[in-house]
């Protein structure tokens, strides 16, 4: 049965205040005014990307209902216009690099590239054709995923879709160069699949040496791998990358990491959540992924911090969060629950080990930048031996005053699921909080999601 689509719109009543917030400046020297952002989000965006403005609750990428959180609107703008910036950059000779989620991006930007995690590759690939509604964009994503499964295996996790998008040249990726073994065991084998029956685009792997605690030689190894990575990206960008250039990029990205840490602490300190789950969870993403433009993203993070400070001081609650919402901490692999469903069930998302980890360690700004980066990456709490990681998660659960822990994982994820019970048991032991596991097979889809949503909602009812 075809039902009428409920369309999300920004009310005209907020326009005047939004325009006062000013525009955004981008890394290539261009600017966009608040007026232009408003026009895009109310006219051009809904026309080009109708799926993003579908107001139905089952859209996991649904825009935030909190329309007076203005930096949230700018974040949405950056996300929807990412495609335009990527094409423009690529046409200007900026290499687009496929990477892993949850890793540092400093070396890529320093070397003149734009790194994209699998999620952003897929967003771009699904949006190549414009004007699609939610169902059409779902089908587009599934077609790409299934083509990957046909080539590789049904047992690969859903990030396979991004690899298929690259393999099929749906999006112009110039280099495949992720970090390996960092939260994911599939990535290395998926990169390897590009060696057969494809355009021979360059590939480079940065090995993350596991079980690294107390082993100084892991820093030597990783630092050397990072040097190789910078050379590979610079080969394509033709940029000269001195240590000073990399140090400057580290400083810039440390700013984003610090902002994310400060906003999270502010949010946690509030009596009532100042942002809803959609907006809150977007912060560590922004600080680690930059939607293709660190400069504009950092500006949005700065504005976010100011808005959150104001809301905390004035006890303003994020739109959609119920009074005395149950607090849920999310653990696991590259997936999270549907924020709208969680809030509809009376809860709010208060933290996520995956995204919080990569923002939790600042990189030293003086000295050898490669060694500094290596030391920081090797200190990511999510990437420590599992018992250590679980201790850190337990601390996060306590700090965020979570009522329960939801361990979610992607279909086909061997590496995170293997320690799902182990982490949950340790966290339960340390905090006394209940936990549950949910396997998600529908990453990025908005149909046939009832099974996992039911489980999440049942867990929320239980806590």
């Amino acid at each position: 049965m075809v039902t009428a689509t409920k369309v999300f719109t920004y009310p005209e009543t907020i326009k005047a205040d939004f325009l006062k917030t000013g525009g955004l400046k981008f890394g290539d020297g261009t600017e966009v005014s608040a007026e232009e952002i408003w026009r895009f989000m109310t006219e051009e965006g809904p026309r080009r990307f109708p799926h993003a403005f579908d107001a139905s609750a089952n859209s996991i990428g649904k825009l935030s209902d909190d329309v007076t959180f203005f930096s949230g609107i700018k974040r949405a703008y950056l996300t929807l216009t990412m495609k335009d910036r990527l094409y423009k950059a690529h046409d200007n000779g900026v290499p687009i690099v496929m990477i892993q989620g949850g890793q540092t991006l400093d070396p890529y930007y320093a070397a003149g590239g734009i790194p994209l995690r699998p999620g952003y590759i897929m967003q771009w690939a699904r949006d190549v054709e414009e004007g699609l509604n939610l169902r059409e964009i779902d089908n587009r994503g599934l077609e790409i995923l299934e083509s990957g499964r046909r080539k590789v295996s049904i047992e690969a996790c859903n990030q396979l879709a991004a690899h298929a998008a690259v393999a099929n040249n749906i999006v112009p990726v110039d280099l495949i160069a992720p970090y390996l073994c960092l939260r994911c065991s599939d990535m290395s084998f998926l990169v390897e699949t590009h060696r057969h029956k494809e355009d021979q685009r360059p590939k480079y792997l940065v090995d993350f040496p596991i079980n690294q605690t107390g082993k100084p030689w892991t820093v030597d190894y990783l630092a050397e791998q990072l040097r190789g990575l910078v050379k590979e990206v610079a080969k394509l960008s033709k940029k000269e990358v001195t240590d000073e250039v990399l140090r400057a990029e580290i400083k810039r990205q440390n700013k984003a990491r610090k902002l994310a840490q400060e906003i999270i602490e502010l949010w946690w300190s509030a009596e009532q959540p100042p942002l809803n789950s959609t907006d809150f969870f977007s912060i560590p993403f922004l600080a680690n992924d930059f939607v293709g433009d660190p400069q504009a993203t950092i500006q949005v993070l700065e504005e976010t911090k100011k808005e959150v400070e104001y809301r905390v001081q004035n006890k303003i609650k994020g739109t959609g969060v119920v009074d005395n919402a149950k607090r849920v901490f999310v653990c696991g692999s590259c997936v999270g629950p549907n924020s709208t469903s969680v809030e509809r069930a009376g809860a709010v998302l208060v933290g996520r080990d995956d995204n919080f980890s990569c923002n939790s360690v600042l990189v030293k700004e003086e000295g050898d930048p490669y060694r500094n980066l290596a030391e920081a990456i090797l200190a990511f709490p999510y990437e420590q031996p599992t018992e250590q990681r679980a201790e850190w998660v337990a601390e996060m659960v306590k700090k965020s005053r979570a009522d329960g822990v939801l361990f979610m994982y992607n279909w086909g994820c061997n590496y995170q699921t293997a320690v799902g019970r182990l982490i949950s048991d340790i966290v339960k032991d340390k905090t006394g909080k209940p936990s549950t596991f949910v396997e998600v097979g529908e990453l990025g889809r908005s149909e046939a999601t009832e099974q996992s949503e039911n489980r999440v909602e049942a867990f929320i009812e239980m806590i």
Partner: protein
Amino acid sequence: MSRTATSVTKVTVLEKIRQAVIDRPAQIAAAKKQGQKVVGWLNYFVPEELLLALDVIPVRVGVGGDEQLVDIGGRYISTKNCVFVRAAVGLLGEKKDPYTPLLDLLAVDASCLQVFRLAEVVKYYFKYETLILGVPRSFTAPEGQAYFRHELQDFTAALEKFSGRKLEQAKLKAAIELLAKIRESLQYLYQYQSQDYANLNWRDVFEIVHAGFYLDRAEYLKLLQELIAELKELPEDKSKIPGTEPRVFISGSQLSPGDVKLINIIEDLGGKIVGDDLWTGLASYLDIQIAAPTVDALADGYLARVPHAALPYLNISTDSRIKKLKELLGRFRAQAVIDHTLRYCDPYTFKAGETKDILNNEGFPFLEIHTEYASSDIEAIRTRVEAFLELVRTRNDVAGGI
């Protein structure tokens, strides 16, 4: 133990090896009473040379084919992990087999990351003392090789502490020589079984390889040398008629002791298995050249061997694993390849398609069997193998036989 009769001629040393395997747990228990320690190990890169040189008893851990162990293991690890890993967790948790109760330490290299996770899980839930050896993904890069040297030095120091002994160069040299001779002997047996009138078949040799997971390595070498001497004396088995059975090579990840589902089906349907590149089979014994009795030389030698598929390699045209596979197909005069992968074993499963393309181009029929330890797919596999062997037979007939 072997399910099918070996041959018309009885090979007496094979029976001795079987008996030695039966007697081995009691021997190890007795050695433990005398103060010797037992190290179970998993994966591909743990050098037994080190364990032997430090006078600890190495046991290669892992069984296949037991669905009950898979269920038990899946309660602690995850149902998204491969059945070997789940079964190994079950085995280590249950401790009902003869070897796991004897282990003082579990040593695991991190080539397969699921096995690395296994070590974390059994350490927490079943209180095993564990030792992890990192393995570089960038294994051909100089920095990867330097990293592995450091890792093995660190691993050695931890083993020295565990065993209470310092590594002596003379003992390491002796261990390197002992294991080199074992590898040489096993390669001889693999070559021998592939002959037309051999008195051993592949299944016997595979069983002998698995016996080496447990037996005292010096005793094992003695038995292997005895066996080779016996085989050289025995008359050829002329009851066999060459060219009647399709010569099948088993490629892929691993068939652990007890995992005989596919082997039984191939043999029941008249296929003759002539070789493998499994890491529980021949692959572990290939191309390890250790240039000196030092830990660094061990690291270099192990890293330069035919790589485990869990280590990514980005240039297919120079991939030494594929090169070795082609060489083995020629060496064993294989006519067809059955690629065996376990459910959720990603490194091998993801490469099955490209391996098929490459070998098809070389003229080898290729069948991918993707399975687990449950018996529910036996008939489906049987049908596929039957059709495949029929195809190979027809091809042979058209080509005028072997």
